[in-house]
């Protein structure tokens, strides 16, 4: 029967080509706009570190005084951690792995005297960072906890930076001048750029290029290297980043099992309570919390307001297109009252008529989906030319490709429901008389 309905649908669509073209165009435009925006949202909310995301957690402590004024426009100071807290959590070693980190930028001086110095972005962090976030090394290795405590002057470079500075991937053991100081290259990492850059400060850019170098955090503090990201202080700021009233560090912990997560949450509460007992904290112990990676991504507010607005616009546009198609299909189906009545009189049930028109709507959806796919590719090409940092990610994967067609067919079948229902309730006798 399906083949027959398909044949009927094709004939009917061919009979009124202008109307068919209008409907296909409407659904194509609506689907194209919606899928462009949905693809962008899809890539922006992708899992940045798929094989580890379930095990990564972000502890929150609140060392701010009770009389701190909340400012909706300024960054939240409790989003980051103070140096003493981060060092205490590191030393406690309650997770499988844990690392404190901060963004930093330095001036790199290439070996060749003729080449100009240039600024590089990277991260000051602690030894577990590399194993926790699964960075691979193409040469050398990560530094150890001993290097952290000894404040060793070592650096891990990205493959790209190693090539720019030394012309080779294997620069382990070489010396490099960053800012005022000289560091020994201890390792070179394979390209690694999780999108979004979930582990960075809320003020950092989230998409695009990742870190070019990694330095031991204690070394960076020791040498007073420039940090990037929010630094919040609620007492007079003397420039000392190790003060207990300055938050600036991100802290990540890897917890493999659910009971480990519960234990860590308890540990955070206990730590917070202990700090309150000592008079360091003013807020109650339950102001501490442990965010999963997913929850952290929500806090980071990854989707810009403009993009959200554009997505709503696209969906609204799809709505307009659907209402349009409902009206056109209604006109088309009701016009075939005579045909429907003949089929009913010859023994077709209401259900059969309903399925017949459903097939016709789905066919329009399928063709419209094809057009929508083309338009979405055009839209994504337009987005990739925008200057936004997420623009380069705007590519369609197989899942989005299939869902384009699925959405198109579902939308057109939904649009066809009311017209088909009306058509199958035509009273045959009345229509047959007028034939």
């Amino acid at each position, binding site marked *: 029967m399906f083949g027959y309905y398909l044949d009927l649908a094709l004939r009917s669509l061919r009979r009124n080509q*202008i*109307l068919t073209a*209008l*409907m296909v*165009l*409407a659904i194509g*435009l*609506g689907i194209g*706009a919606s899928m462009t925006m949905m693809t962008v949202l899809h890539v922006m909310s992708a899992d940045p570190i798929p094989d580890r995301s379930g095990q990564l957690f972000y502890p929150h402590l609140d060392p701010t005084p009770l009389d701190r004024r909340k*400012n909706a*426009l*300024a960054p939240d100071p409790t989003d980051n951690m103070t140096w003493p807290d981060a060092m205490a959590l590191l030393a406690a070693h309650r997770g499988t792995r844990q690392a404190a980190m901060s963004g930093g930028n330095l*001036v790199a001086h290439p070996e060749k005297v003729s080449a*100009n*110095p*240039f*600024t590089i972005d990277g991260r000051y962090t602690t030894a577990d960072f590399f194993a926790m976030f699964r960075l691979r090394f193409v040469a050398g290795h990560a530094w150890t906890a001993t290097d952290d405590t000894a404040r060793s002057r070592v650096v891990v470079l990205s493959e790209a930076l190693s090539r720019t500075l030394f012309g080779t991937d294997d620069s382990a053991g070489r010396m490099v001048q960053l*800012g*005022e100081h000289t560091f020994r290259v201890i390792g070179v990492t394979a390209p690694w750029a999780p999108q979004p850059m979930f582990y960075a400060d809320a003020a950092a850019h989230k998409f695009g290029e990742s870190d070019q170098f990694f330095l031991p955090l204690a070394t960076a503090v020791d040498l007073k290297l420039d940090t990037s990201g929010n630094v919040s202080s609620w007492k007079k700021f003397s420039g000392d980043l190790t003060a207990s009233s300055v938050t600036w560090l991100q802290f990540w912990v890897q917890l493999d099992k659910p009971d480990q997560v519960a234990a860590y949450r308890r540990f955070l509460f206990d730590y917070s309570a202990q700090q309150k007992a000592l008079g360091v904290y003013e807020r109650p112990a339950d102001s501490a919390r442990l965010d999963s990676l997913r929850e952290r991504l929500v806090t980071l507010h990854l989707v810009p*307001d*403009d993009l*959200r*607005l*554009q997505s709503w*616009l*696209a969906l*609204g*546009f799809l*709505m*307009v*297109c659907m*209402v*349009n198609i*409902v*009206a*056109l299909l*209604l*006109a*088309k189906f009701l*016009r075939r009252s005579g045909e429907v009545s003949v089929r009913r009189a010859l023994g077709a049930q209401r259900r059969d008529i309903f399925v017949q028109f459903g097939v016709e709507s789905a066919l329009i959806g399928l063709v419209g989906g094809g057009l929508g796919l083309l338009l979405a590719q055009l839209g994504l090409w337009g987005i990739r030319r*925008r*200057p*936004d940092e997420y623009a380069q990610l705007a590519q369609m994967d197989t899942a989005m490709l299939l869902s384009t067609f699925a959405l198109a067919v579902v939308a057109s079948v939904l649009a066809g429901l*009311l017209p088909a229902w*009306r058509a199958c309730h035509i009273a045959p006798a009345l229509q047959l008389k007028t034939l």
Partner: protein
Amino acid sequence: MQIRPVLSALRKHRVATVLIAMEIALACAVLCNACFLIANRVQQIRIHSGVDERALAAIKLTGFDEKDGVDLNARVLSGLATIPGMRSVSVINAVPFGGSPNNAGITTDAAGKQFAGVVNFYTGGPGSFTALGLRLIAGRAPQDDDYQPVVHFVPDDALVWVSQSLAEHAWPGVDPIGKEFWVGRPHFRVAGVVANLARPSPGEGGPSTIEWSVFVPSQPGAHFAGTYLLRASPEELSRVLRDARAAIAKIAPDAVLETATSQSVASLRETFFQQDRTMAGILLGVIAAMLLVTALGIVGLASFWVQQRRRQIGIRRALGATRGDILGYFQTENFLIVTFGIVLGMLLAFALNLLLMTHYELPRLPLYYLPIGALILWGLGQLAVLGPALRAAAVPPVVATRSV
């Protein structure tokens, strides 16, 4: 034209009528709000920076040691001044649209209780006030001994020039000259008001605070070095900037030239508003596509109705109706449907505006957008229905005698 027969005919096609009216309503709501969003963006793009954008450029150096700042300033100022066509070179901390603002919260009392917002401080060395081309509307221009050494990020106790927008915000309705404000301990006294002065980058308070800027005459030194304001005639500016960027490699080989910010102020402005321009373009595209789809819907439905009523049209023509009557009938019908849609659409437009206001920084939709939106949709409806209506008018009366 009689409306009653049209209405009773529409009652026979209730579902289709309601659907087209709904489509018009949705289009009306989106049209009004999208136009309003565009107008808002355009207003932001059009903002007056207060400086001679076409004659100014910035050079920004980083990566040098703080103790070398004094020496760097001397080398750059003398080195760049020799470039042919250069009108002036001065030290400044930032230029409008160039990023790296010096934001600080100010209070209008020494105790720090009367908070007056987060404002941007421009520190400018000798010559920069004139070079910027700021238009003074009250008070006097800075004199040589007004330039104070920078202590932290600004001089500790200085005379300042504020933008009119900031003066009206901090001291509404009173003469701002001589008024004082504080940033913790550092203390400032207003010596003049300039017509406009935009921030280097958007502030924490959103678009309405874009001109909350203060100009502090400052003496270049170790804490105040690295960014330079170049002035040349608009025709020569791009060449002068190119020469200056090339000269920096020789003048200051150890410093890093920030290429993204070492641009003319006009091109910094271009980059600054790129996102707003894209957004306005997208909104325009959405409006166009939606009007197109709505028009297509009207064309489709009207064509169908014309075909369906061929016989009735023929009968009306045979009974003496003119072509104009038939044309008028379909136009009236369309007018009525669109009017239903518009009434519903105005309510929707307001609901959508309220929703947008809770999520975005957006004022209330001005009422005059509604009649304009209505006029556009009425026009669109009449245009869309014209084709099918003309076809209906062309139906010959002889149709009535066939197949009856």
